[in-house]
Structures are given as C-alpha cells and as structure tokens.
C-alpha cells in the first residue's frame, strides 16, 4: 500500500495479533457471565461494522440495510439447526454463504441507484424481510439445547469459549478487510467513492467491484448474524432485522473511522460496552437507552467531525507530512524523448463515422465524422455549446451514440461501457478536473494503471512511469487535493497514461492555466505524441492550440464546420464567423 500513513503489512499483522492476544487473555480472567457476554458481543458488532465498512466505507455507497444480511444469517443458523439438525459449526459458514448470495441479489438492482436513494432503498430490504418472517410464524425461534453433544453444536459450559470464537471471527474479518484494502479491490472501491465516473473512465469496472464488495460484506454480516443467534439462543425478527441492527453497523464504523481497518473495531469497543452497561444499570428506568447512546454518538460525530474522527486526524497528520521526499528510483522511470516531431501522417487508428446524439430536441452532436492518424495531435475547437464534450462522452462511453460508429483500430466501440473502452486503449481527462482528491498522486495513477496491468506490482510500475512522463514524480506521495491546477491537469493525464492508452482524449486541458504553465503542459503533450500516442484535444480558445496541434476540427452547434491545418483554419471565414461573429471579420477585413 502506498499511502504514507498505511502501516506496513507485517506491522499490521503484528498489531492485530497483539490485540487478539490481549483481548483473549482478558477474557480468560473474567468469570462473570454477563461481562463475558459483553466481551462476546463486542466482536460481533465489530464484524458487523467491518462488513458495513467494506461496502459503504470504502465505496461510499451508504447502506441502511445491513440488518437484512445479519437477520438472514441468524435465521439460517436457527432454522438449519431446528429443522435439519445442522450444527452451527456448519451453519455459520452457511450463514455467510446466505449473506453473500443475498448481497449479490440485493446489489444487482440496487446499484442502479446512487447517494441517498441507495441508502433508502437498502433500508427497505430488512424491513420487508422483518414482516415476511413474522408472517411465516417465526416470531421467536429458540435454538434447541443439545445435551448429548454440546460441543458439536457450539454449546459450551465455559462462556469464555464464545469470546474466543467471536474474536476469531473478528480477526478473520480484519484480515479480509486488510487484504482488500491493500489490493486493487480496495483501491477501486475508494476511487469509486471519490468519483465514480472518473473511475469508470480510468478503466475501473465499477459495477463488478461494487457487487464483489456487497457480496463479501453480506457474507461477513451473515456470519456475524449466525454467530449472534448461537450466543443469544433466541432469534426474533425485530432483534435481527430491526433498524437498530443496521444503524449499529453504520454507527460503530463511522464513530471509529470510515474506510479504515481499525475504525469499526474501535467503534465497537467504545460503544457496545457503553450502551450495554447503561442498559444494565438504567434499562429499567430508561428503556431505550441503547438507541439513545448510538443516536447521540452519531450526531456528535457528524457535528464535530463530519468526515469521521479517523479521517480528520489523518488529514491533520498528512498535512504535516506533505514534504515527504520522492520515492527512490522514481526518477529513473522517465523516458528519453526525441525532440523532433514527425509530421507525416501514419495509418488511421481512430475514426468516428456519422456519429449523432440528441438530448430530447437538442441535437448536441450531428452526423460527425472524424479520422485520426497514428501519433497525430488533433485539436477539436468550437464555441461553448458546440458539442465538444458531448462528443468526448460518446467517444469514451459515458454516452451511447444514437447512430454512427466509433472505430478504434478498425473495431467498433460505440456504446460500450467506459471501462471497456478504456481497456481497449482510450484514456481521457475532464474539462473540470476530477482527481480522486483523498488519494495520493501515486494512487491516482495506480487506479488508472490497473486496466492494463496483470499484477499489482506491474500496475505500480506503470503508475510511476506515467507520473515521470508528466513530471509529477516528486509529488507522488502528496494528496491529490493539495495540488495546484496545473498539477491536477498533469495528474489527470498521468492517470490516463498509466493505462497505456493508444488514444488520449484531453478535454480543455489548457483551460485556466497561466501562460508559462500552458507551455509546460504543451511540452508534455508533444512528448507523448512523439512516443506514438494519438491525441485528441478539445479547447475553445484557439491561441495556444495553434502551436500544439497538427490539424484542427471545428465544431459549431453540434456539426462539423471545418477541418484542416492550423494555418488554414485560422483564416477560414466560416470559422471566424462562428467564433467571433460576422462583425469581427468585417471590421478586420
């Protein structure tokens, strides 16, 4: 893992082991069964928090419905033992499977939604299931005592064993989370949270990763629900499908720190004993005290540290560490570039044939045909509203053309998903920069590199090389959110480059830059073209473009107005009219 604060894998493992040992030893010296119950329940909720975190923390898709997976797991273990005599030793893995399947089934339709719609839709699942299980007549299921083979049915006289089992489950969940966090799985989820469209354009298969996340998350929640049933011996619909279950998962994770390994654990360690003790002492007087504790905890977190306590601290620490020196060896990745540009056109690598796109009555792109040769820099210009960005959105798959073909190396890619088009070799940047702000510069490039990298180490090498190509190697460890506008423009180019594209689509990359900065970026783009990357760049100002591009395409009102060499285009009267109005031409004639 490349963020500076991320603890090394070995240290992380040591920390987890030390924590498990301390917790397990603590349980060994406790005799009171009530305290042992609390010690058992803390890891159960930590696992629920980790499950929630795996989906919602990393990907940003907030779930209000993790009780669905928890409850299904609990009922699976109870029903399997009652009806088929299946021991929880098998029942809990089964509950994980049930949770995983439920996660997948829920995810497929629900990931069509974003933001609060996703959260509210998720809320509906456990509530619907709650009534279904009541209707089925499972108001109260008790796990039968097995006097003959108690151990075979996970029934122990010594309650410390439950603590250790719960602990084992939690360690398993932590190791799983840690593995996810360190791999392209976790990186992809974080990229989705930061900017889903940009992630997809950078080659991340967003839906696939989200489905994997909810499946794994459902499995963890199902397993913890199954174990919960064994510990409490009684399952009722409100206890396992109720709102408080989903809320508790969310709250322990948010309290401790979203999208961190230790966050849900810390949250459970603080909040579960607190609410349990208050419930035991004041439960008779104040019946809803547990819910109130969780409610107050989450309100306090939102008001005092809306992004989560952990992230606030992390941001503060990182700001102090901005001056970290560059990684050793990064500079060596830069490539020597021949300074002379070869202007002779190569073979056509990219072609748009009669592409059209309308939004209702507005025909944003009308029957446009463009050919781009290997290594060429094509400039697309046109006044605001000419259809330039819409054209790019067609080219990289954000939009599906109403008609027409988009050929990359002779293959039609029109209407394919953005990550497929990215994988086919089309990288893009955005008019308004869309970096993954809370990720480091290197991680930004890394996300872009996965699409054409077989292994994580290969991806890292590609990312480092891409940063060197745009001259950002010294900023590799900075958070993207701290970069200047020019650096962000270069970072977007690097992110696209890391995926080893054949064609690079640059959307107003020069916009908002100072004169000197424009020259720097132009130099970078020229260098890339010299390496054989074909480039299509959009601008609405012509000035700097004249010195950058080999050929211009001029759009106006969605249609192709003119096409030609820079010197011809600047004298074309139709172009001047579109840009500056007839009056300008007449006045200057």
């Amino acid at each position, binding site marked *: 893992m490349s963020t500076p604060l991320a603890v090394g894998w070995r240290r992380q493992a040591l920390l987890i082991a030390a924590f498990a040992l301390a917790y397990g030893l603590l349980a060994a010296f406790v005799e009171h069964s009530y305290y042992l119950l609390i010690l058992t329940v803390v890891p159960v909720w930590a696992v629920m928090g980790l499950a929630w975190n795996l989906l919602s923390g990393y990907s940003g898709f907030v779930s209000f419905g993790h009780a669905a997976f928890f409850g299904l797991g609990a009922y699976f273990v109870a029903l399997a033992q009652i009806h088929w005599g299946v021991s929880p030793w098998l029942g809990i893995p089964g509950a994980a499977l049930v949770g995983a399947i439920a996660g997948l089934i829920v995810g497929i339709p629900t990931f069509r939604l974003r933001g609060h719609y996703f959260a509210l839709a998720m809320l509906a699942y456990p*509530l619907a299931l709650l009534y279904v299980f009541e209707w089925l007549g499972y108001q109260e299921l008790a796990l039968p005592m097995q006097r003959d083979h108690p151990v075979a049915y996970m029934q122990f006289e010594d309650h410390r064993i439950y603590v250790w089992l719960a602990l084992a489950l939690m360690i398993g969940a932590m190791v799983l989370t840690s593995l996810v966090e360190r791999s392209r799985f976790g990186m992809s989820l974080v990229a989705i949270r930061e900017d889903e469209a940009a992630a997809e354009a950078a080659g991340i298969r967003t839906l696939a990763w989200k489905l994997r996340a909810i499946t794994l998350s459902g499995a963890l929640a199902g397993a913890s629900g199954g174990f919960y049933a064994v510990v409490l011996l009684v399952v009722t619909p409100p206890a396992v499908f109720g709102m408080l279950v989903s809320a508790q998962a969310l709250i322990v994770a948010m309290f401790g720190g979203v999208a961190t390994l230790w966050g849900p654990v810390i949250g459970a360690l603080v909040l579960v004993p607190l609410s349990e003790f208050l419930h035991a002492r004041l439960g008779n007087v104040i019946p809803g005290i547990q819910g109130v504790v969780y409610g107050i905890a*989450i309100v306090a977190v939102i008001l005092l540290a809306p992004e989560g306590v952990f992230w606030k601290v992390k941001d503060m620490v990182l700001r102090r560490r901005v001056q970290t020196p560059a990684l050793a060896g990064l500079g060596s990745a830069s490539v020597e570039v021949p300074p002379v540009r070869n202007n002779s056109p190569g073979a056509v690598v990219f072609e748009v044939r009669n592409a059209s796109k309308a939004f209702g009555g507005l025909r944003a792109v009308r029957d446009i045909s463009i050919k781009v040769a290997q290594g060429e820099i094509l400039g697309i210009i046109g006044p605001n509203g000419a259809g330039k960005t819409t054209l790019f959105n067609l080219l990289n798959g954000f939009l599906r053309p109403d008609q027409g073909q988009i050929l990359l190396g002779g293959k039609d890619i029109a209407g394919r998903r953005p990550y497929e088009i990215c994988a086919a070799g089309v990288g893009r940047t955005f008019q308004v920069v869309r970096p993954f702000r809370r990720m480091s510069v290197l991680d930004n490039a890394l996300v872009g590199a996965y699409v054409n990298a077989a292994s994580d180490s290969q991806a890292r090498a590609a990312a480092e090389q891409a940063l060197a190509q745009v001259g950002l190697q010294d900023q590799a460890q900075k958070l993207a959110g701290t970069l200047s506008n020019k650096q962000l423009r270069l970072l977007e180019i690097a992110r696209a480059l890391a995926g080893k594209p054949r064609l690079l689509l640059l959307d107003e990359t020069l916009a908002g830059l100072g004169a000197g900065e424009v020259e720097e970026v132009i130099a970078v783009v020229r260098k890339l073209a010299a390496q054989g990357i074909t480039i299509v760049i959009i601008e609405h100002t012509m000035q700097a473009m004249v010195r950058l591009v080999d050929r211009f395409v001029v759009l106006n009102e969605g249609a192709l107005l003119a096409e030609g060499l820079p010197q011809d285009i600047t004298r074309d009267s139709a172009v001047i009219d579109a840009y500056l109005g007839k009056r300008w031409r007449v006045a200057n004639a």
Partner: protein
Amino acid sequence: MSVAQFTENFLQALIAGLLTGSIYGLMCVGLSVIFGVMRVINFAHGDFMMLGMYVAYYAFGLLGIHAVFGATIGPYVAALIAGPVIFVAGVVVHRLLISRVTGMRGSTLQSEGHYAQLILTLGLALILQNGGLYVFGSTPVSIATPLASNAWALGPLHGDRIEVFVNQGQTVAAVIAVAVVLAFVMIMSRSRLGKSLRAAADNPEAATYMGIDVAQSHRLAFGFGVAITAIGGGLLASGTSFQPYVGLEYVIVMYAGVVLGGLGSVSGAFFGGLTIGLVQQMSTLFLPNQLQNTAIFVVFLFIVLLRPQGLFGTAMRRT
C-alpha cells in the same frame, strides 16, 4: 371467491385506500417540502410524525381538548394542534442540528452534505424513537374517535349482493387532510412567504442576492414540513393506536410517495401518497394483512429502481 364477493372486496379496498391515502398524501406533502423542494434528507421525518401523534394524544387528554370538544371531534382538533407545536420543534431542531449540514454549509461536504444529513437524522431518529420509549412508554396508546368504529353502508348495490362500508372516522380525517393540503398549496403558490421559500430552495445563492433570508427560509420550510406531517400523524392517531417506534414504518411510505409524485412537486407528493395508500389497501386483496407493509416496501423499491424521477417527472442525466 365469487365475482360479486371480489367486487365487494375490491370496492372496499378502493375506498379504504383513498381514505388512508389522503392522510398519507398529507404526510408526503410535508416531506416533499423538505426532501422534494429543499433536497434535505430527513430520515427522522417519521419520528416527527410520531411526536405529532403524542402531542395530539396529550393535547386531547391533558390539555382538555377532550373536555371542551368531546370525544368525537376532539381527536381532530388535537391533530390540528400538533401542527404548530411540531412546527416550533422543527424550527429548533433545524437551527441546532440540521442547519449545520445543509444549505451553504452542506455544499462543502461530500455529495452536498446528503450523507451527513442522512446520518445526522438517523441519529436523531434513534434518539427520538428510544427517548420516546422513556418519555411516552412502550404501551400502545390511542385517541380513537367513536366515529372510527362507525361506518356508512353503501348499498346493497347490484341486486343485494354487494355492500360497501365507509368508515366515518377515516372520512372526516381524509377531508381534513385534503383541506390542509389545499391550504398549504395556496400558501406556497400565492403568498410572499411561499414565494421566498421556493426561491430559497431553488437557488439559495440567487435568493440571497434578492434579499431573501435563506437561512430563515430553510428553517421555516423545515418547520412547515414536519408540522404538516405531524398533522397527518395526528389524523392517523384518530383511528389507530400507536407507540414510539411507529415512525419508521411511515418513513418508507412517505419517501415512496414523494419519489412517486416527482421530487419538487408539492401537489405531486399528495397524489404519490394517495397512490401508496391505494397500493397498501389493494395489496390486502392478494396478500395476507401482515404483508401490507412488505408490499409497500417492494413498491418503493420498484419506484426508485425503475422511475426515480417519479411518475410525473422527467429524466435528467448528467455526466
């Protein structure tokens, strides 16, 4: 089931659906002011409704509404009293909590503060539900009017095989609900207050330049939103018993109605709520009673998955 019997059941469910649906419609209008127009996510909306029910309950008993207006119309008067009381509560809660994560302050947060709102109001919901358990007790209470157990008989129709009953209590409640909706729609469209509320919701920044106190407008809108829903809760209370956890079930009902009616449309929200009421009652024709709410949740899922822009709205796409 014979055709006549099915027809009878169908008509019965239709009438019940229209009557409950009118109250749901009123509740949805309240939420639409907050969610549809201001785009603030209020997860605790159902719990404000619950508070409204208890305000009506205590007004009926302790404040002497019962003694003054009697058991028949007393519950309806109590329901209307819940409005201004919850309005004040809403304004205070907005001032202390909601305003920290909405408007200009929300725009600096991730996804315009929607997550912060969602989670903040989730915490609020937990506090209200469980605090309610302490304050109000867990035993279900009721201020049912005697009208709720009386019905007008329609029929016998079609020979003498079909006879339909119209609950008197629900009918009065539905009429009041429609009247409150109409009054509110008038206020929103005609009055200066309504115009500034809509302007502040539509474009806070521009509204500021026009001399509108946006923070105050948002506060008032939030107050109106919860107050209207509280009146709806009070009307529900005139026919049914309730406990502190009642709000959660209606959160989904209300969001389903608002989304169905199309975000931003106050009158659309009413028809959305009406539709949800119809769906709930019609579902009893095919499903066991216990699954009424499950039917609503499934319908809600279908609505958000298939037509998140609502039945009457138009799709918007951004890239």
